């Protein structure tokens, strides 16, 4: 149990650790409680809520953390674009066959989950930092599918298909939560699936470029947007 509690930040443990241990002694935790505790530890690290010490909302406490979605989107977008450009400019083979893509595919496969995570983080911040279960799973699957895709065939196909599905889902969720109409959301999903499914062995690779470009533009707008001044919690 002490190993589990160590997942919580030190300041949190100093404040609530003893009483939580006492509670767990009174009521031994079920497997679901253990999952809940792990989730609570992540929450305590992402949104510290210690009373008295921090009257400022955590989302606004650190201007750098406010820029995380923007910086991540720019990084992911540039990585993705680099992969597209590497493939797009590579010479076509004289005979039938694939283009030599080298590091391009890994760059694309690393860029896409970064874009996904940036959008998920931006959506969470839009909801005043309320991190939902779906957000967590989308981020895990986005990163996990990239790892799977690096394992070679058939993981490559499975990972790419999963990544495309997750990316389309993340785009749809972000647009819907931003108030976009159903038609815009549906159009974005179709275009995302079509673009990210583009064949990488010929010039259709350039169809993927808008994903990276949009991510960079989104990241720049997000990172350069003026920050609201620190707000104090109602007390």
């Amino acid at each position, binding site marked *: 149990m002490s190993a589990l509690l160590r997942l919580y930040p030190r300041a*949190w443990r100093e*404040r*609530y650790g*003893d*009483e*939580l*241990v*006492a*509670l*767990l002694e*009174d*009521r031994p*935790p079920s497997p*679901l*409680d253990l*999952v*809940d*505790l*792990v*989730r*609570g*530890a992540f*929450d*305590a690290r992402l949104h510290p*809520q*210690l*009373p*008295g010490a*921090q*009257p400022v909302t955590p989302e606004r406490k650190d201007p750098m953390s406010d820029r995380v979605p923007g910086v991540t989107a720019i990084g992911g977008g540039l990585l993705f674009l680099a992969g597209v450009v590497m493939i797009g400019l590579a010479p076509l083979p004289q005979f039938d066959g694939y283009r030599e893509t080298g590091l391009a595919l890994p760059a694309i496969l690393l860029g896409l989950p970064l874009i996904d995570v940036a959008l998920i983080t931006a959506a969470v911040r839009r*909801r*005043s*930092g*309320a*991190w*939902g279960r779906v957000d967590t799973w989308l981020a895990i699957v986005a990163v996990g599918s990239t790892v799977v895709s690096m394992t070679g065939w058939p993981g490559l196909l499975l990972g790419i298909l999963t990544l495309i599905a997750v990316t389309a889902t993340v785009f749809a969720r972000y647009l819907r939560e931003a108030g976009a109409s159903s038609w815009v959301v549906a159009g974005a999903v179709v275009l995302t699936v079509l673009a990210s499914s583009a064949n990488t062995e010929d010039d259709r690779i350039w169809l993927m470029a808008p994903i990276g470009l949009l991510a960079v533009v989104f990241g720049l707008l997000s990172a350069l947007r003026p920050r609201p001044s620190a707000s104090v*919690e*109602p*007390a």
Partner: protein
Amino acid sequence: MSADLGDLGRFAEPSLLILVSLSAGPNHGYAIMEDVEAIGGSRIGPGTLYAALARLEARGLIEALPPEDRRRPYRLTGLGATTLRAQLEGLEGFARTGLRRLAGGAGLA
């Protein structure tokens, strides 16, 4: 003046249940869990309980009392009581409207 529980996201509902539990008097974590289960029929996990307690305390809706053998009781503050009253009145109005419409029968097939 009352605070808005809506900005607590997924912790809004557990927080409301905790405030209702504490409206009966100061209580510590384990007793709050048991009480919430009894009055709300839903179980709050220990991680969720303390995440919600920390948020309520940070917002001044509850306050911690001196610990008794590692078990620290919490009690409602004035702001907590006002907030709970506003929330419950809102829910009461919402329930009344729903029941009235249901009684009218216009929405039935």
